[in-house]
């Protein structure tokens, strides 16, 4: 680190060589890694060998991008869940046995089933590096301190932030086992440069501070960092956090449990995050056909190949996150890595079509935050009646706001004006909706499984 710190040429980037490489060089590296990884998985993971054999594909067949896109089969969560349920180990897609494992995790279970995950020690180190690109870009440097607003559990996301802090050389201050009020006081006492939490929880701490008459701006926090929810890329929530905390920077990280935090915001806010192309390959496909999305600005399902997770390889893995990918971003940060404006726009398995209009939950979330008199707390309830999708937007009024019917009408009009369809709205009193420390549950889908968008391709 001392060499790089002493040499001014590398100060802006965590790893300039790849972060600024042109698209053609990056794609060549991706293809080499993918080919290597496919061979590794075929040789060591019975699940992958079965999938590739069933498709009549050998690793040596995968030589070009066209081979990758059209010959190599997708993998999906049900493949791993079925494998973990039928294997003695209880893990799906294993390529390395328990003698290589350092830590066990599971996914958050937001889609109903936990996926068990095992990581080797090297993988945890590598997972930690994924956070360094973004945090470095935001100005975090060795010997800065970071405060973690949560208790560590089975969800890998928090742990990778911890390993990221270790890899970057940050001083770690744990807020585990503390109440919200205690955390506010810790932050005011310890004055960390960075505070890490979900956007909902960071806003919750601001509410607590206000209630207790404490001024979080006096803590001198420079960077608020987190992920797990859309909030850190929602302009109004970013503004609210900046105001409440007096922070200079908001750092967003996007990830999936299977490939970890593979998206990071840079120092030039452009409404989204970059793919961390040192650790994964990203592209998007039409959810129904599986064909790559090629048109500029086209929305597709995010498909990931992870170079970090080797105990359980995830290759051409369907995330079901709907994204836009700009593969040649030019917003002034200098990164050449793909950019996801708006980060996750919705889910291919939570897709809602109302009177012929695709409604993305993230778009609704952005619009809620633009209505004065509402807090950032809300829920989206999806249902189906008479063959038609419906969405109820339940939002929470700010403290002291009493005319809930008027507020509901204003929200409804704002949504209709911007989305082109009318959604049902309901406003509840301040403090009614639950606060979560970890990933906040905001979308409740009451539709029968068969009535949802059928984009999860079940393999026979």
């Amino acid at each position: 680190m001392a060499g790089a710190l002493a040499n001014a040429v590398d100060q802006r980037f965590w790893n300039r060589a790849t972060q600024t490489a042109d698209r053609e060089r990056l794609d060549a590296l991706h293809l080499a890694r993918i080919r290597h990884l496919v061979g590794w998985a075929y040789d060591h993971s019975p699940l992958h060998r079965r999938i590739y054999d069933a498709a009549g594909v050998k690793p040596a067949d995968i030589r070009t991008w066209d081979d990758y896109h059209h010959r190599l089969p997708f993998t999906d969560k049900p493949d791993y869940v079925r494998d973990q349920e039928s294997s003695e180990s209880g893990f799906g897609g294993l390529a390395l046995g328990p003698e290589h494992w350092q830590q066990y995790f599971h996914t958050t279970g937001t889609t109903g089933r936990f996926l068990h995950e095992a990581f080797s020690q090297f993988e945890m180190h590598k997972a930690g590096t994924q956070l360094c690109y973004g945090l470095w870009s935001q100005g975090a440097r060795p010997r800065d301190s970071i405060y973690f607003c949560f208790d560590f559990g089975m969800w890998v996301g928090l742990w990778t932030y911890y390993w990221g802090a270790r890899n970057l050389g940050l001083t770690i201050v744990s807020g585990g086992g503390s109440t919200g009020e205690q955390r506010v006081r810790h932050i005011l006492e310890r004055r960390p440069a960075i505070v890490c939490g979900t956007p909902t929880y960071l806003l919750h701490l601001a509410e607590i501070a206000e209630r207790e008459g404490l001024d979080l701006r006096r803590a001198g926090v420079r960077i608020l960092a987190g992920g797990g929810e859309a909030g850190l890329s929602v302009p109004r929530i970013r503004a609210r956090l900046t105001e409440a905390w007096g922070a200079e920077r908001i750092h967003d990280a996007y990830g999936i449990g299977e490939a970890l935090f593979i998206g990071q915001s840079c120092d030039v806010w452009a409404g989204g995050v970059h793919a961390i192309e040192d650790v994964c390959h990203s592209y998007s496909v039409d959810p129904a056909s599986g064909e790559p999305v090629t048109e500029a600005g086209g929305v597709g399902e995010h498909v990931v190949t992870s170079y970090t997770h080797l105990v359980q390889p995830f290759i051409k893995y369907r995330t079901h996150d709907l994204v836009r990918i700009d593969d040649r971003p030019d917003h002034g940060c200098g990164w050449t890595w793909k950019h996801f404006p708006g980060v996750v726009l919705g889910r291919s398995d939570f897709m809602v079509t109302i009177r012929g209009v695709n409604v993305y939950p993230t778009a609704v979330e952005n619009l809620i935050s633009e209505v004065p008199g509402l807090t950032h707390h809300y829920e989206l309830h999806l249902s189906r009646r008479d063959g038609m999708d419906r969405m109820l937007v339940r939002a929470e009024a700010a403290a002291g706001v009493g005319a809930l019917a008027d507020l509901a009408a204003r929200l409804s009009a704002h949504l209709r004006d911007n989305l082109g369809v009318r959604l049902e709205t309901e406003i509840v009193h301040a403090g009614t909706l639950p606060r979560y420390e970890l990933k906040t549950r905001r979308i409740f889908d009451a539709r029968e499984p068969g009535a949802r968008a059928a984009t999860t391709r079940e393999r026979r």
Partner: protein
Amino acid sequence: MAGVVQGTRTRTDLGPLPPPEPELGTGPQLGTGAGSGLGADVERQRARLLAVHAHLAREREAALSPAIERALETAQMYLFLALGYVGHTDALFPDELQGAPTASPSTDPTEAEGVEP
């Protein structure tokens, strides 16, 4: 994986160090890929890192205690992060560099039908 399991390879005899590996670029464990394409300075650093990795591997073979062996194993993990930063694609994790075959039979391009030489 070449039998590299954490904590099981400590050398118990105190004989001389194994002979050094061949010069950089001539041994299969030192990487046989065509290079990262990220520039000459990056490629030179990649070559130096591979040499360090090979040195660490030899030292690990000669470790006098589990403590030293484990410390060197951890050092190799950190070193391998640096290899990732310079576009190393011949291996995806440290143990792949230590005695593993450079290409498994399944990745032999000649195995695929219709592949041009």
